[in-house]
């Protein structure tokens, strides 16, 4: 049995609601993400937000990232700012603002007029913790993510997988503890899919407070790398979508395992999630 504890709340969504043209999209969304501590490990958090197409996942994604103000409710986060040595318990909670979270859009949008190196440098310069080591950090990330050979190229010259990795590195260089990913597995072939999943696991293990929130409808892949699943769905007779279910994958012994997909409990959990949608 894996030893772990759940400590401080890193993100708290309270009573989130969102409407467009009097149509309720999100209603009373409440959930929290806590810091998972495993002795001797830098264990980050990987949370997946699963729901059917058109249920409001992208709207919730935008609210969580601070790009969209909710009609009601709030999203608060607790994160270290410049000094990464400060314990999270000493950091104050504050409402999320645009720029607080790293955001990787579904189409991996990048500035078309900047080379990969320039784009990464723009992000790294926003990260005060890097000091004057931005260029070294870029080289290190590029090597780790197999992008050293394309640093001088423009986004239009990259493959979809390379663009995705550039987007992820860009947001990591910015230095945010939170990384929101909108459909990171869509449109990828099977081989690349596993690589991207492995990459996200690596990212989550890079820092104790690194928290990945994956919005996806690819249930198998997303759940295989997550520690917690939130299901966004509708409740009978009520308008809008809300969190209808929280599944603790650690409690079920399904988190942090490389070959988790081979386990019967995993297949049962996937079936259970599908049943909730």
């Amino acid at each position, binding site marked *: 049995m894996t030893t772990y504890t759940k400590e401080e709340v890193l993100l708290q969504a309270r009573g989130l609601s969102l409407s467009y043209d009097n149509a309720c999209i999100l209603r009373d969304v409440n959930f929290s993400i806590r810091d998972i501590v495993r002795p001797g490990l830098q264990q980050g958090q990987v949370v997946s937000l699963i729901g059917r197409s058109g249920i409001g996942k992208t709207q919730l994604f935008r609210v969580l*990232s*601070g*790009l969209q103000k909710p009609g009601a409710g709030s999203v608060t986060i607790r994160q270290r700012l410049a000094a990464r040595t400060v314990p999270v318990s000493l950091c104050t909670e504050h409402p999320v603002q*645009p*720029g*607080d*979270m*790293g*955001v990787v*859009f579904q*189409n991996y*949008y*990048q*500035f*078309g*007029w900047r080379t990969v190196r320039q784009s990464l440098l*723009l*992000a790294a310069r*926003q990260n005060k913790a890097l000091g004057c080591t931005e260029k070294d950090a870029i080289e290190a990330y590029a090597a780790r993510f197999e992008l050293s050979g394309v640093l001088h190229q*423009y986004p*239009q*010259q990259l493959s979809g997988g390379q663009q995705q990795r550039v987007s992820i590195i*860009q*947001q990591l260089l*910015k230095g945010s503890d939170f990384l929101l990913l909108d459909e990171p597995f869509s449109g990828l072939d099977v081989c690349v899919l596993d690589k991207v999943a492995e990459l996200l696991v690596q990212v989550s293990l890079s820092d104790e407070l690194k928290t990945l929130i994956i919005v996806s409808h690819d249930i198998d892949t997303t759940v295989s790398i997550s520690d917690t699943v939130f299901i966004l769905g509708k409740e009978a007779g009520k308008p809008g979508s809300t969190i209808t279910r929280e599944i603790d994958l650690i409690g079920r012994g399904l988190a942090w395992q490389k070959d988790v997909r081979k386990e019967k409990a995993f297949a049962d959990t996937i079936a259970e999630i599908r049943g909730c949608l």
Partner: protein
Amino acid sequence: MVLLQVTLTLLLWQSGAGGLIPAPTKIAAALGHLLTTRLLSDNILVSLLLTGQAMFWSILITLGFAYLSVIPFFSSIAQFIVKCRYLTLTGLIFIFTLLTRDGSQLKLSLLVAGIVPFFTTSFLSVIVNIPKQEFELCQTLGYSRWQSLYEVIIVGKADQVFEILRQNFAISWMMITMVEGLSMSEGGIGTLLIRYNKYNDLTNVIALQMVIFGIGLCFDYLLGTLRRWLFPYTKL
């Protein structure tokens, strides 16, 4: 293909020419003569300098209003400038004469007034069509409003400013002949054209039109090449 089309046109023209319409051979001879005189080169230089000055000021004014158009107060002014495309300058020449010191300033101000509405129209359409995601990416990187404006509009759209410049060079080059006719003392290719026109020297008029057309095409090519060199991503 193009060569064949041009040859066919010239042959048709040559066979149909006569009376008042000069034949291509006569125009070629006049063009050859013009090219050997200093008269043409001096006047071309005057016109190019005036066009260059007009382009410079027009870009400055356009960029100023276009960048400021994100602020509501300047937005309505920019919209008014766009509508000024429908104003004809002919009736306003007297007012411009009163407002300027000399013929040189009059020509420059008329050119600028003629170009700016077209520049502003083109550039505002570029700004309006900026994808929301470009600003959102700036937001996710923690940029301030001014940083976003600099990155997305100033740096990100620099190539399109250059393209607008290239497209609108044609307008200023077309207007040069009109404004140079207003103050002929300084010369210019427009002055030369009006003089030949006055004496109904159609051979030289068409030869001069060829020169104006050729210079326009050269600048179009030059600015296009320069854009691809300065902004290599536009080739992708």
